[in-house]
């Protein structure tokens, strides 16, 4: 499967009469976008705002971030199972408005959504302070239950991103990247001198605000399965989760999965990247046992020498991570784990809920309990008072002067376990 990704660099976003890309600027017809995003009888109102890098703007509570993409050649469309049919994606050509993002907000669904600051301390922690954001604030009709509320906002974000993505259909990309994975036997024989590496892509699947979808299917309902890596770039994996927003993957992160990007970058050079196995993180022990057994089986079936395993979330998913690690290692296949830590505000506590001596190669994406002060912003899009209730904040997080004292857990993407963030460590 071969996919060309044409990146159209977006350096600014502005409102305009027509939605189009001109000289690196994305112009957005606000009324049209509001209309498209609001095409759902369960939507009461839609407002659209712009938030650019460096502006004194806070977006709270953030539900999802989606990258505007459009399929220009080949079968299917972006976000299959939601915005298009369920044709196989991941081949042909896709155009991307690189540098633009749709951010969804609106009144809180649960108690666990994120914050994006475009300036100051918070901006250093979220990758989405560096994108030109089209913020879609969606309010549902009054009678809607929580689960439906989540669906309504998620789909409004997908519609908005799809609408903006169309502006890239006729544009000439500034760069074109090509990614290719052959059918397994062919791929295996291609670089016989290199170690064969697969990617175990764990997806959060624990209910409201904790769900992930593959071609529209709720991933908690699947058994682990194979995926061509390029499918992710076309939105085959879509997010319905933002709880403890620091380490949940917004749809944007799946569309840009840095693990897949990096594995492709080494493909044919230091490794032979065989493909992905997607698996879930469910809420019963039997599900966890079944999925980790199947994952280990599929890794063996692929004939991999080593795997990268990325976790999504923390706490009980640490048990899924450890089960995947143990069962794959016991087949003689080496593993590298990517996780983050909840080591307490002083960093002194046990970082993960579960552990294994076989997990001897582990990458951390940071300590989510680290406390920071987010300075007051001139503009707040959304509801600042939810800083007192979302996971990572506490009653009193929102200060009288508008600043927020909180754990970085509340910041969208701050400890992203696919590495889609800017935390680094250095030895001193």
């Amino acid at each position, binding site marked *: 499967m071969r996919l060309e990704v044409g990146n159209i660099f977006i350096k600014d976003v502005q409102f305009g009469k027509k939605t189009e890309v001109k000289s690196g600027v994305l112009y957005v017809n606000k009324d049209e976008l509001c209309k498209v995003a609001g095409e759902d009888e369960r939507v009461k109102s839609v407002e659209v705002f712009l938030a650019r890098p460096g502006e004194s703007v806070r977006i709270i509570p953030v539900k999802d971030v989606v990258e505007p993409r459009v399929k220009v050649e080949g079968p299917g469309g972006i976000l299959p199972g939601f915005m298009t049919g369920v044709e196989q994606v991941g081949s042909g050509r896709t155009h991307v408005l690189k540098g633009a993002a749709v951010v969804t907000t609106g009144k809180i669904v649960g108690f666990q959504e994120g914050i994006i600051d475009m300036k100051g301390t918070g901006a250093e922690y979220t990758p989405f302070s560096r994108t030109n954001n089209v913020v879609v604030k969606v309010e549902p009709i009054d009678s809607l239950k929580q689960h439906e509320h989540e669906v309504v906002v998620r789909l409004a974000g997908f519609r908005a991103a799809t609408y903006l993505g169309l502006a890239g259909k006729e544009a000439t990309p500034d760069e074109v990247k090509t990614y290719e994975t052959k059918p397994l036997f062919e791929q295996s024989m291609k670089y016989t001198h290199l170690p064969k590496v697969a990617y175990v892509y764990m997806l959060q699947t624990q209910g409201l605000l904790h769900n992930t979808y593959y071609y529209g299917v709720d991933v908690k309902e699947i058994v682990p399965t194979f995926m061509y890596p390029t499918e992710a770039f076309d939105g085959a994996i879509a997010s319905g989760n933002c709880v403890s927003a620091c380490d949940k993957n917004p749809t944007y992160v799946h569309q840009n999965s840095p693990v897949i990007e990096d594995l492709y970058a080494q493909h044919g050079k230091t490794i032979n990247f065989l493909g992905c196995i997607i698996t879930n993180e469910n809420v*019963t*022990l039997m599900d966890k046992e079944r999925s980790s057994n199947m994952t280990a089986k599929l890794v063996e079936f692929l004939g991999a020498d080593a795997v990268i395993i990325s976790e999504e979330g923390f706490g*009980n998913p640490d*048990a899924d991570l*450890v089960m995947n690690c143990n069962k794959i290692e016991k087949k003689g296949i080496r593993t590298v784990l990517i996780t983050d830590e909840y080591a307490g505000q002083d960093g002194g506590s046990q970082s993960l809920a579960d552990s294994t001596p076989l997990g001897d190669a582990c990458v951390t994406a940071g300590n989510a309990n680290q406390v920071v002060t987010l300075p007051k912003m001139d503009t707040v899009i959304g509801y600042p008072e939810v800083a007192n209730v979302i996971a990572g904040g506490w009653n009193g997080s929102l200060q009288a002067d508008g600043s927020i004292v909180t754990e970085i857990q509340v910041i969208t993407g701050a400890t992203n376990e696919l590495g889609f963030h800017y935390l680094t460590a250095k030895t001193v």
Partner: protein
Amino acid sequence: MPVVHMCTIVPISMTVGANRIVPTVAIPYPLGNPNLTPADEKELRRKLVRKGLEALTTEIHGQTVFKD
């Protein structure tokens, strides 16, 4: 003082060193099950509590999981 850890994800319970472990239903509802009728759910709760009491009063020699 004996302690029973009633939890869903037994491996975590083992890792943190609990001695008496009673497996429960699911992470969002360890001692219930919204898929059951209220009467059946009440019986489920009673069964789990009885299992917990049994574990509490059972002599053990090392980490023990009290399965059905």
